[in-house]
């Protein structure tokens, strides 16, 4: 059994460590509790959930109000897309594990912190790429529907299909914008980089929510369309 070795830090590491302590005490999220950005993001999640609930009940009412609902098969690409989005949540978690580990690593070596950060950023890029592929997949789904002659106004079922997928897509694009913002913070100046993980916590809530929302929409559309 070994007691924890006394580490003598060089000047640069000391500075980084004390900064980490200040900033991370202000961002206890990664250890416990939530930051203001995360509280705000939960509020955003509540609002967006409410909006999609409104659209859901609109669809249910509309379907029941008239006998003109045309059922159609969901394009297969939607299922592939779901897997892509789930994968992006996975890669996001890979990013998180690395970024969370940074403050602990600072005790030992800032080089380790650097590796963790660049690994984390790599996985974040992958997450963003998967998100963009998802959007592309949605466009393919739309093209598929158009090829069958199903447009926005063709039938209430297609109307709701386009409305749901378009709005989810718009929100996901917003999420990709948020991802770009987080990337900018993380790849910023050296003192900032490991520290700007506040925005990362909030961003990951949003991204995972987009994933869960999509799974919900897929189930809804699969059951009703």
């Amino acid at each position, binding site marked *: 059994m070994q007691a924890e070795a006394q580490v003598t830090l060089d000047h640069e590491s000391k500075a980084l460590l004390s900064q980490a302590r200040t900033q991370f005490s202000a961002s206890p999220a990664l250890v416990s509790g939530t930051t203001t950005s995360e509280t705000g993001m939960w*509020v955003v999640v509540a609002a967006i959930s409410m909006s999609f609930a409104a659209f859901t009940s609109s669809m249910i009412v*509309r379907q029941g109000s008239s006998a003109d609902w045309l059922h159609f098969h969901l394009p297969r690409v939607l299922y592939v897309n779901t897997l892509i989005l789930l994968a992006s949540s996975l890669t996001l978690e890979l990013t998180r594990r690395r970024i969370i580990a940074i403050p602990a690593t600072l005790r030992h070596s800032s080089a380790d912190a650097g590796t963790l950060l660049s690994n984390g950023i790599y996985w974040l890029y992958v997450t963003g790429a998967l998100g963009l592929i998802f959007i592309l997949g949605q466009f393919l789904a739309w093209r598929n529907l158009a090829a069958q002659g199903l447009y926005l106004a063709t039938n209430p079922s297609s*109307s709701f299909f386009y409305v749901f997928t378009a709005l989810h897509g718009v929100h996901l694009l917003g999420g990709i914008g948020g991802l770009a913002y987080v990337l900018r913070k993380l790849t910023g100046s050296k003192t900032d980089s490991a520290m700007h993980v506040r925005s990362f916590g909030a961003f990951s809530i949003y991204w995972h929510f987009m994933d869960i929302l999509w799974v919900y929409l897929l189930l809804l559309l699969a059951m009703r369309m």
Partner: protein
Amino acid sequence: MQETSLQAVHQHAPPTSFIRKHVFSLDHKVIGKQYYGLALVAVFVGMILSWLMRIHLAWPTWPIPGLDKLSAVGAPAGVMTPEYYLSLMTMHGTIMVFFVLTNAPFAAFGNYFLPIQIGAEDMAFPRFNMMSFWTTFTAFLVMVAAFFVSDGPPISGWTAYAPLSAIGKDAGPGLAMGQNLWAISIAIFCVGSLLGALNFIATTLDLRTKGMSLSRMPYSTWAWFVTAVISLLAFAVLLPACILLILDRTAGTSFFIASGLVLSDHLQPHSGGSTLLWQHLFWFFGHPEVYIAILPSIGIVATILPVFARKPLLGPRATIGCMIAIGFLSYMVWGHHMFVSGMNPFSANLFSVPTLFITIPATILTLLLSATVYGAKMRFHTPALFCLGFISVFISGGVSGFFLAQPSLDVYLHATYFVVAHFHFVMAVASIFGVFAATYFWFPKMFGRMMNDTLGKWHFWLTFIGVYCIFMPMHYLGLAGNVRRYSAFVDDYLIPLIPVHKFITIAALATGAAQFIFLFNLIWSRFKGPIAPENPWEATSLEWSTTSPPPFDNFGGRHMVVYQGPNEFGVEGSANDYVMQTSPEKIVSR
């Protein structure tokens, strides 16, 4: 939570340029004043619209000078067509409900005072805050633009019921571009409100200073917080409704439009939609919306009344509980706007019962406010007068709600002036009285000068008597069967009611004129009013522990520590008859 509070202020340093200080400002105090300014402009626009309507109702053939300039089609030779009357009514309702009643008590005063009352240096997300104001401002511009399109504003009411609002040009004047602008404006307004609500909630939860537990927050802060939660969930439903409406109007979908409608000799190409769906979506938003309009005023009155009664608010926990209960119940009652819409009459009971339930917390609040002043040595300054007036008009308006809550009575009273009387009393009068009370109370803090109390008292009494003259007779009109939204009274049973309408019109014009006393007082005091001390009213909450007006970071670098609740008035055994929230004085007896 100290560190997270520091985060907020370190996001922005004091601005230097004029644009950054007064136009695109991140400072919640400037944003609050901007919202107030917007609401002030909007209320005068809305009031002028109501004058035009009232003048037409009293003297239908008298040409109104200048009206033909506003719309040659809608008011040829200054006499408005029935359709133009409906246009003015639509814009009056929309502008008043959205741009006045949602803005002034909530966005304006809430933005200014919520952070200060909890001891924070700014809102949680200052950039979103700035965006929320400019989004709302844009929405206002788009809305006003509807006056200037060729067809004029929409005629479908602030409620914009489908299919009238969903069909388009064929359905009537103002329903082409005018309705499009309306829908787009409201959609933009939703975004602005959502951003604002986000800020209020995050700030209240996360940025309270040391010692400021939730139970020590002033009642106005509680009201803004509950209102923000309601607002978030309600506007999140209105936005989808507007999106579906815009799609029906522009993309040929049929969410709200049923089949077989022939309008203006055209068979409409839509089919299968549900007209009731719009009503459900709209009123699911619409009912919480009216509580968004009234709750901040209730919180404001609960904050101000003890200051002038020099007695603590009776039942502070019950007050907070009732506000939360009203917020919760407000989501269960929307169908009481739809009793005669053709929905299942049994479902009417499902909505009637919670509607009657909601009168319970509202009544408790009213009784607590009234009991607070019982036996008080009242300081009758203008804010106190408006608070007492609030209690009066809230009761007057609330009582008519009991009747409307019952489907059997509503079958008769729906769409009559009885409903108009009810909602004007609770919204237009009670809520606005809360805004007036807040203005006179917080003006010294915001601008460092006192408003003139004599002018304030004139303003109060003329307004108080005036609104009773305007809206009390409307109950009688409603019971007599006077249908609302009519621009002329040609049925023989309505003709004997015309003198009542004339009386109301004269009262409306006079009361409107009295508001210029307020406007003059506001502007004159801003520049020439006597300098205000830090705590002119001897109140307890945190805003009175800083300078008038507060410095950029609200407390001049101090991190405020709170020891008391906001309710320590009439305290015996202390140097004054009140104890401020920041005072560590131990209160032994009362």
